[in-house]
């Protein structure tokens, strides 16, 4: 990354003028506290990640998958992080940073609720008042996560504008921030948004590959041949890749949600997938230039995935850049393959992955023959949040390795 917040032509700061001082202030804080460890910020961050978050997470050899695929499959267990996903690495980093910056309030938006719950946890832990914006429709689809946020003392604000989903929640959070920049920090949930967010979130998540690289040396005696991670916005992805990017021998695979099809429906403005790296075009969204799912005139398309955490029309600008540079290979698996991956890991290794994560295992199941040697798969999160969708989506399809779930046909 160059210091101007660009990754090649990607990135930048395409935001309303009113937010510029806030992101400049944040950029300054990022440089000082994160990059230069001023006041021991990074030390405190790492210590809290260990004590509160449960780091390091294991790098576990998946014996049964290794046998099945004739590979050395290793799992980086972010599902064991407090909250059940890698999201806390970033949320804790940003809430702590907000404290160092003297902010006294946190806001965030959330779609599926994973980033919201991580932020609410971090805010409770660090005693920061926290408001989470969430589309009304998403609230109704993700009630357990809403409840978790409220239990942690966050104020969950339903957003009724538009369709009541993530995009409206993002606008609403921007709106709040634009009015409160001086006291408030906006915790963005992935490696997206204007600089410094993509770089900063990557740096908070990079602990994943920092640990994995070291653990690989211990357990594999060297570097892995490939690293695989699912990609929505791309924060677990960049976290898992960051410390391997300079190791040219390590292949990096970003697995996107292929949804029901990679083709788009221009008419309806709908892409039945969330594969912006694989199929998107360059454009400007939510503060950054990156690869997007958009129609021919530049309206953002509604994306789709069975996993709400991957269901986003954009992707982190650094990933877009690394794909253009041929450093990261973008791949996509469809909803069915993701469900197959979900059941495979659950049955074979006793780990129920998030549906997001399941895409990485769907890729492994479909393409293991193209891989060789040792593979690290980032288990970005656990699937407890997805049980209901997994039942419904599995029932609606023919998934070869699905268990009999007839007893759940009326829901769980």
């Amino acid at each position, binding site marked *: 990354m160059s210091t101007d917040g660009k990754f090649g032509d990607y990135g930048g700061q395409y*935001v309303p003028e009113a937010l510029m*001082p806030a992101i400049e202030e944040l950029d300054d804080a990022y440089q000082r506290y994160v990059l230069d460890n001023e006041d021991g910020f990074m030390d405190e961050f790492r210590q809290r990640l260990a004590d509160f978050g449960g780091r390091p997470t294991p790098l576990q050899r998946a014996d049964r998958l290794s046998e099945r695929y004739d590979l050395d499959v290793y799992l980086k267990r972010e599902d064991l992080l407090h909250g059940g996903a890698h999201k806390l690495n970033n949320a804790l980093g940003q809430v702590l940073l907000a404290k160092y910056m003297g902010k006294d309030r946190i806001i965030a938006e959330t779609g599926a609720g994973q980033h919201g719950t991580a932020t609410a946890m971090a805010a409770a832990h660090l005693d920061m008042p926290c408001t989470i914006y969430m589309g009304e429709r998403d609230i109704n689809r993700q009630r357990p996560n809403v409840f978790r946020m409220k239990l942690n003392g966050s104020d969950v604000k339903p957003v009724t504008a*538009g369709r009541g989903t993530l995009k409206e929640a993002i606008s609403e959070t921007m709106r709040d921030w634009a*009015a409160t920049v001086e006291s408030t920090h906006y915790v963005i949930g992935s490696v997206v948004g204007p600089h410094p967010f993509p770089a900063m979130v990557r740096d908070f998540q990079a602990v994943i590959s920092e640990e994995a690289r070291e653990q690989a040396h211990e357990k594999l005696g060297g570097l892995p041949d490939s690293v695989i991670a699912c990609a929505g916005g791309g924060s677990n992805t960049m976290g898992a890749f960051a410390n391997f990017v300079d190791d040219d021998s390590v292949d990096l695979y970003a697995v996107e949600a292929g949804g029901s099809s990679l083709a788009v429906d221009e008419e309806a403005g709908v892409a039945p997938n969330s594969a912006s790296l694989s199929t998107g075009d360059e454009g400007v969204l939510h503060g950054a230039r990156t690869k997007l799912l*958009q129609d021919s005139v530049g*309206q953002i398309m509604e994306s789709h995935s069975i996993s709400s955490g991957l269901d986003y029309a954009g992707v982190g600008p650094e990933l877009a850049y690394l794909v253009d540079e041929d450093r990261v290979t973008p791949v996509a698996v469809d909803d069915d393959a993701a469900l197959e991956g979900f059941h495979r890991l659950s049955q074979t290794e006793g780990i129920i992955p998030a549906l997001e994560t399941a895409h990485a295992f769907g890729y492994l199941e479909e393409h293991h023959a193209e891989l060789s040697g040792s593979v690290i798969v980032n288990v970005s999160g656990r699937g407890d949040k997805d049980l209901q969708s997994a039942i419904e989506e599995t029932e609606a399809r023919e998934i070869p390795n699905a268990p009999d779930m007839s007893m759940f046909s009326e829901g769980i």
Partner: protein
Amino acid sequence: MAENEAIAAAFADGPAFIPYLAVGDPDYEASKAYVEALARGGADIIELGLPFSEPIAEGSTIQNAIVRALEGGMTPDRFFEFVEELDVDVPLVCMTYYNLIYQYGRSRGGEPGPEAFVERAAEVGISGFVVPDLPAEEADPLRAACDEHGLDLVFIVAPTTEGDRLEEMMERVSGYVYVQARLGTTGAKTDVSDQTTRSLQRLAEWDVPKAVGFGISSGDQAARIVANGADGIIVGSALVDIVAAGVNSERPVDETAEKLAAKARELAAGTREGAARRNADIADADSA
């Protein structure tokens, strides 16, 4: 840097009243009637919003207008058609988000970049642009295209904009600066912040017209702001509210248009009134 003559003319004989509407809200024909009503009501310049699917800088009033307009089928090409067909005699400024400007070239089979959009805008009679998510630092390609076609590029100055950022912006701005009255996003509010006064003072050294917007909803406010030194007032949400009320109560288009015209008259009158007060103040000061 080119200066658009029509816009310059609009500020020439005193402060300008600059209303905003989202084009296509709630449909093409009604929207045309509404924009024409604003002109009738005394608009000096009209800001025409080309709806973008992710309007991150808007308050919920305008966001909802944009949703209605998109659902009504508004597209960049329909927007240009709309402008072409519009029967008004005031300069028109296109307000939209950068991605639509950037992608237009590609949609016509060419390269992405702002040129194609600006060329077409110039063709249909647009005089300038406001692009709320385009910071001055990223604006050079659009600025260059505007220069080529004699269009203005308006920047928004926030209460917090100062120092180098302000310089960069003022180097690239033309037509007028959009002075954001207070922090936050668009939306009708009743108080007139004294952040506005400070902003106007900070901008005094540049002689580009300063139009104040964000939260202005009455002729009174308009008068006070202009009296305080603004060269124009920009009113969006207060007008969009009238359109929304019309939609919600299924009022006939011409009735809503008439209400818009009436509101425009109030705001235009406020603007003139403010100018008169300021002249009187200046006269007072002169005579003191």
